[in-house]
């Protein structure tokens, strides 16, 4: 019975998740905190439910089939935000279940869209929990489970593929999948520690440094302040954020490759990394010039400082703001959001299409154009010296098709529910690509609390759809998947 075997593993995931609640609990313990009771209740409830679930289904445990893998990922990503929302509902008075689930899903998918206001007044533990969930979800809890639990051997690689981003997931750097997962988490951990210390050195408090580290390396974008980075108004802190967002935007495995080769050459020779940085620098220059020409800023230094921070923040799908870039002439924020759709590299914690798919599509288009002129030409799509197989190309094209259909479809749903065009379109883009803030009613200065329950659920669904790269979620809606 497949469902029971999957439930057995979901039970273990819930237990793992309950153990993660120790982190906000520790923060709640250290200082006076209103969230302490809520977190104790939530952690105990989660642990008990998880243990019960895994104990009851214990005898059904078996090796997973590929199909079970999708069910497991789908169930994990639907169920865990529920438990993640539990302490929020308990600790924040007046927060609806819809908004709490939205908030947890936004954290878990490292989107950074918030439905909460008055962040500065929230108990510290609640803010820590929001940010810590983002840190875990950014890289993926199933990748974490594969790394630390000896539960998934062969089935593990199937699971791993659904949570790690990018079109070419067959490349393994280590023979065993658990080792690969450990390498990724190790790299992530190292990056996090350096980011944490850098924030602290730049002037944040310990707890702020921890929380913003969590949301920076996961390219999520939650903050513990309503004003986000505007709270400090410090070029140094913004500089640290920019640096680590740019580091997190490329594949974590690249660092391992570089470390193994004992040189940075694999990093800067990588086509995808080059394209990522080129796209960032190009757009920064363009937007800075545009803003000054339109008179949004008087001085070049102010224009450049705000442009760099916001372009990097939105393009890497983080979504920090230091002031309301929604007030800029529409071209600038729209370009930034479009950049967020594809700029980050495969294997990073960022969302969106991923730069590598964009590059493959561009190369494919050029190939078709050359073929019109020279019908007999043989020009395979080559990336990094290796010909990309047709199978990969087809999956990229299918992905793009579904991506486009998803954007249009969800935008139409939001329009139908009564939103204006700019809000609906940017909300969908910001959620599907896990950016966070959109424009209009969901812009950087306001948040998603203004949406109706229905609209919030649509956005919640869009986030998980984007985080798992569409296919892993959409496959659950095909009748063939459920047929025996």
């Amino acid at each position, binding site marked *: 019975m497949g469902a029971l075997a999957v439930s057995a593993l979901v039970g273990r995931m819930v237990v793992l998740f309950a153990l993660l609640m120790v982190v906000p609990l520790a923060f709640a313990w250290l200082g006076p905190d209103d969230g302490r009771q809520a977190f104790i209740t939530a952690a105990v409830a989660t642990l008990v439910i998880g243990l019960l679930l895994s104990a009851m289904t214990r005898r059904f445990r078996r090796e997973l089939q590929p199909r079970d893998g999708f069910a497991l990922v789908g169930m994990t990503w639907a169920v865990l935000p529920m438990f993640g929302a539990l302490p929020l509902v308990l600790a924040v008075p007046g927060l609806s279940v819809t908004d709490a689930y939205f908030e947890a899903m936004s954290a878990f998918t490292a989107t950074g869209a918030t439905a909460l206001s008055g962040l500065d007044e929230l108990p510290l533990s609640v803010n820590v929990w929001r940010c810590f969930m983002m840190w875990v979800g950014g890289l993926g809890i199933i990748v974490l489970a594969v790394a630390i639990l000896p539960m998934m051997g*062969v089935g593990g*690689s199937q699971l791993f593929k659904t949570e790690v981003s990018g079109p070419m997931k*067959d490349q*393994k750097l*280590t*023979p*065993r999948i*658990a080792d690969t997962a450990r390498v990724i988490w190790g790299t992530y951990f190292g990056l996090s520690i350096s980011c944490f210390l850098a924030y602290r050195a730049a002037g944040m408090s310990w707890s702020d440094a921890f929380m913003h580290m969590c949301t920076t390396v996961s390219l999520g974008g939650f903050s513990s302040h309503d004003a986000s980075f505007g709270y400090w108004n410090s070029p140094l802190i913004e500089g640290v954020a920019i640096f680590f967002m740019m580091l997190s935007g490329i594949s974590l495995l690249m660092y391992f490759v570089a470390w193994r080769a004992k040189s940075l050459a694999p990093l800067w020779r990588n086509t995808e990394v080059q394209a990522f940085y080129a796209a960032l620098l190009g757009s920064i220059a363009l937007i800075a010039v545009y803003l000054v020409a339109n008179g949004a800023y008087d001085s070049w230094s102010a224009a450049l400082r705000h442009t760099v921070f916001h372009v990097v923040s939105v393009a890497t799908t983080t979504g920090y703001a230091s002031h309301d870039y929604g007030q800029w002439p529409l071209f600038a924020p729209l370009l930034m959001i479009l950049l967020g759709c594809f700029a980050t590299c495969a294997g990073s914690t960022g969302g969106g299409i991923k730069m590598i798919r964009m590059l493959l599509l561009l190369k494919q288009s050029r190939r078709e154009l050359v073929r019109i002129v020279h019908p007999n030409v043989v020009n395979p799509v080559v990336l990094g010296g290796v010909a990309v197989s047709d199978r990969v190309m087809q999956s990229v094209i299918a992905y793009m098709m579904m991506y486009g259909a998803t954007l249009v479809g969800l935008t139409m749903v939001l329009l139908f529910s009564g939103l204006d065009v700019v809000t609906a379109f940017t909300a969908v883009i910001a959620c599907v690509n896990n950016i966070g803030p959109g424009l209009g009613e969901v812009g950087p200065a306001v948040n998603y609390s203004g949406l109706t329950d229905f609209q919030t659920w649509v956005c919640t669904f869009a986030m998980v759809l984007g985080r798992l790269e569409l296919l892993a979620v959409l496959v659950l809606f095909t009748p063939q998947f459920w047929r025996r």
Partner: protein
Amino acid sequence: MKILILGAGRVGESVAESLASERNDITVIDTNPARLRELQDRLDLRGVVGNGIQPSVLREAGIEDTDLLIACAPLDETNLVICKVAHDIFNVPTTIARLRSPEFVNGSPLMDKSGFAVDQVICPEESVTAYIRKLIEYPEALQVLEFAHGLVSLIAVRAVAGGPLVQHSLAEIPQLVPNVDMRIVAIYRQDKVLLTLEGSTRIEAGDEVFVLAATEHIRTVLGALRSIDRPVKRIMIAGGGKVGLRLAREVQGQYQVKIIEPIETRCEYLATQLSGDVLVLKGDSTDEELLADENVQDMDLFLALTSDDEDNIMSCLLAKRLGAKRVLAVINRRAYADLVQGTSIDIAISPSHAVLGELLAFVRRGDVEAVHSLRRGAAEALEAIVRGDRKTCRMAGRRIEEVGLPKGAQVGAIVRGLHRSDGSEAGEDAKPEVIIAHHDTVVQPNDHVIVFVPRKRMVREVEKLFQVSATFLF
């Protein structure tokens, strides 16, 4: 253990499958990306596309820190070169090559470190031939495996009503079969192992029984579990490929051999290679007219050895129906082999599996002398040498019941006297003694201990028992 496998063919695949489930780091090199992708999806391993004799490809596959290299590419030449490259350039400690040609054998100067640097030659055809030869000798057995230079044998046999021990309990064995010391190490009933073997456990007809005994007692053991057939005289071999030819060459003269082969030129070749009393027949082994014409009903043993699983199964079923006494099929696909073994087809052999034991001896930790993979990889029998003493090794100087073997694992026999007390190999004058183990037998240092492990995941625990560590008691 870091293992590099070259060639994702049948042998490579089955080796990878067997080793991947034991937490080894496995990398497979092959030129066919589709084949590797399929393996990667199914097993937890890494595939590297490329030609394995190129150092750059080997380096990409991480050969620098590889512990064991297994070369099983289709061509002997490739395998020899890879072992040479691995040893000379990358200092891989152990290299194993699959070599089909019978001229490259273990221990020849060509294979040593200054030659092609092959530590162990494996040859599935050779292993299958040896397997079948044992069965020709003991047609009542399902499998006969040798340990300790042939002193001890592990015998797998299906109990049949009429054997003196059948329907009796294990405690009655000494009375029913006096003067022969044997130990039943496992009983499989309807393909499930009985985890506890006690004095009161009864042997039922149809059980698959694994018995350890001194090699000279094999026939008595077989006679205790089923009635003895008359010895094999007439053999029919379907398929004159590599295995068929090897086998026919080895048994010609001792038995009446008929060999069926569909390809005319191959038939002619066979006829020139084999002596005149071997009858080479041109024809299809699934042709019932041919089988009937050639008196398949009088055959003591019908062996289907073609490379086609389905043909082998069909011709065996046909031969059995026509009256052959015992039929044996070589079946590559594991699922098929599990399916047909013990039905009308008496024995199913999978060649890639027959060779696995020789590899496993290199993978197992501790001083392992021989490993045999049983029941198509589900179980294992190992012969390991006890090193150290009571203070440093959990096995040494203790009674077997004190050792703490995992449930179901059984020490079957001990061979003493193969080594001098300083651990060095005893010479020609050695008088080794076979001790069939009982719960109170004390294991001495330098004993060869033969352990039957009914489930593969217990192997790790058993290995630990043999490991010598200076700090074990502290």
